[in-house]
């Protein structure tokens, strides 16, 4: 049906995944945290260095002042604003210092401030960054694990669904790829269930059909056997024999009709039959259905009235089958009409459907029978000549055309059957839910 868009992994599409959103949020948060921590640590270390530096300077000033009291006013200036002094002073100092072995190669142990700074910086940065990375990886792991947890849950629920023959429970209702995967998997499991249910329905249908056939055919077969036996009896008179033969012929005709109709319904319902739809005027099909019934209508003095829109309706259908469905409806209406009654066959077109209604002026169908009239072998009144197969057959044919057949009736006001057929049927018949 719908296709999950395989190409074009756009930013927006990625952004819909909650995992991606969480990952971005985590990385941003951790980056901000790292910046803040580094800044705070820099501040702290600077402050500490300043204090130690000050302590060293103070000791220097103290010891120099004790040795040379005349320099007291000069000393702090010297130590604080050293950059503004003549560069020559530094060269002189360097010469004096290196004479006593104080230069860049000197061991840190000589400078406790530097030694402590270096040691602490290394340790703190090492441990701090290590811990930070550990925390980050733990959080990332959790984030990373999330999809796997969902996939695991999906797998477990899919397994349960297979074991219990039930649709999947607890899918993931989430945006993004995982949510879509979960949805598709659930859809698949639902369709599988539907297919299984349909197969079961078809099987029970077949069972019912077999039962119907055997039940409906046994009775006439039994009576045929009796008549044949009677005919074989030499005591049967020629006149009786002719009458028995006539009865046999009627029974055989009835049986033939029964078997043919049952086979048609079975083939329609078991989807073993394909319609051959052609685009043809609906009116021609109605004429085709009316033709063999005109004699019967005349015999019963029932008027057949056909109403159609002036422009006519043309739609894709199988004229042979649809006319059979209509013929069954019209025959049913004629049979239930009073003498001098009227059966009106009206076609009507709306933007999307064609409606064909067959209305009689008979006694109507009692409300209690209405829900059952499309069931096979259901007879609501003795008026009908058939065995209760005409309406189910008509219904099967109409549904095969992706339309539907409905009945409305009020006792005393007659019955109307309405066939509704879609005008715009997709050329390739729309895949049903159970098409895998």
């Amino acid at each position, binding site marked *: 049906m719908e296709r999950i868009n395989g190409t074009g992994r756009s930013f927006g599409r990625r952004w819909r995944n909650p995992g991606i959103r969480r990952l971005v949020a985590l990385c941003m948060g951790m980056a901000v945290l790292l910046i803040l921590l580094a800044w705070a640590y820099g501040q702290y270390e600077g402050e500490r260095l300043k204090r130690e530096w000050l302590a060293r300077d103070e000791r220097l000033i103290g010891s120099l002042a004790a040795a040379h009291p005349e320099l007291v006013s000069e000393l702090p200036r010297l130590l604080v604003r050293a950059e503004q002094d003549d560069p020559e002073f530094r060269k002189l100092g360097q010469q004096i210092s290196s004479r006593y072995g104080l230069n860049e190669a000197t061991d840190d142990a000589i400078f406790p401030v530097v030694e402590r700074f270096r040691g602490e910086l290394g340790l703190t940065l090492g441990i701090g960054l290590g811990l930070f990375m550990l925390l980050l990886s733990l959080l990332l792991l959790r984030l990373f694990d999330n999809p796997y947890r969902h996939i695991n849950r999906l797998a477990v629920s899919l397994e349960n669904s297979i074991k219990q023959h039930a649709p999947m429970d607890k899918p993931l209702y989430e945006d993004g790829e995982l*949510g879509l995967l979960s949805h598709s998997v659930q859809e698949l499991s639902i369709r599988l269930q539907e297919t299984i249910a349909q197969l079961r329905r078809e099987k029970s249908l077949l069972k019912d059909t077999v039962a119907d056939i055997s039940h409906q055919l046994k009775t006439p077969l039994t009576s045929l056997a009796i008549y044949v036996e009677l005919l074989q009896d030499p005591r049967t008179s020629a006149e009786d024999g002719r009458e028995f033969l006539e009865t046999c012929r009627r029974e055989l005709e009835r049986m033939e009709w029964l078997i043919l109709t049952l086979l048609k319904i079975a083939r329609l319902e078991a989807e073993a039959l394909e319609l051959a739809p052609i685009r043809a005027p609906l009116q021609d099909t109605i004429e085709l259905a009316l033709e063999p019934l005109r004699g019967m209508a005349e015999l019963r003095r029932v008027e057949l009235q056909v109403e159609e829109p002036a422009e006519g309706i043309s739609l894709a259908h199988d004229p042979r089958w649809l006319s059979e469905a209509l013929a069954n409806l019209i025959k049913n209406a004629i049979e239930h009409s009073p003498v001098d009654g009227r059966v009106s066959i009206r076609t009507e077109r709306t*933007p*999307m459907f064609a409606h064909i209604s067959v209305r009689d002026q008979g006694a109507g169908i009692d409300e209690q029978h209405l829900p059952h009239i499309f069931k096979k072998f259901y007879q609501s009144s003795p008026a009908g000549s058939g065995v209760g197969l005409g309406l189910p057959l008509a219904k099967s044919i109409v549904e095969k055309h992706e339309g539907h057949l409905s009945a409305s009736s009020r006792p005393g006001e007659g019955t109307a059957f309405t066939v509704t057929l879609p005008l715009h049927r997709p050329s390739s018949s729309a895949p049903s839910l159970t098409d895998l």
Partner: protein
Amino acid sequence: MNSIIEIDKLSKTYGKDSTKVEALREVGFDVAQGEFVAIVGSSGSGKSTLLHMLGGLDHPTSGTVRIDGENLYALKERERAVFRRRKIGFIFQSFNLIPVLNVEENIGLPLLLDHRQPDKEYVRDLIRTLGLEERRKHLPSELSGGQQQRVAIGRALAYRPAIVLADEPTGNLDSANSREVMELLKLAVRQYHQTVVVISHDMNIAAEADRVLRMQDGRLVSDTRGGNRE
């Protein structure tokens, strides 16, 4: 057949004390898959509230709503939104189409929201079935009311939701278009095994359904199965 909608002791109360209104009082029923159900009742009978509860649009005061086995109100808000998008199709009295999108785009909208590319063939088939082929590039404002409602039906069917909820779908339409919309919904039930719940105050509309639930003063007063199907 398994139930696709299970409602148990659903109650909804608005306001408090003296201004208290009991919109729903312990309503409970099941709907089987593929059923076409109409909920009828006068205005104020609680039928709209009930439909909103079914669609996860409002919170019940007590009771549960299960759709396809999922307890709707046990889901988180965000999960419910996704659930709604994938499992429930809505059709409203006022169509609620996006005015700047054309027919095709409006129908494909639920899929686009999920960043899924609507299958062109499926959408074309759907548009054909809806009789909108010549208008697929038109904007909603260029369509008649009946056509707009057909677009809304197409949109509700695009994700092939488990259930379709229609709130007075024919309220703004004349009788010919109303009948059309109902026929279309019936076709959907048959063709796609969908379950449709329609609320209406029009008994002629309700008569088309397999089953009619009648609401009165927040209670379910009758549950009758119609005669159109076996």
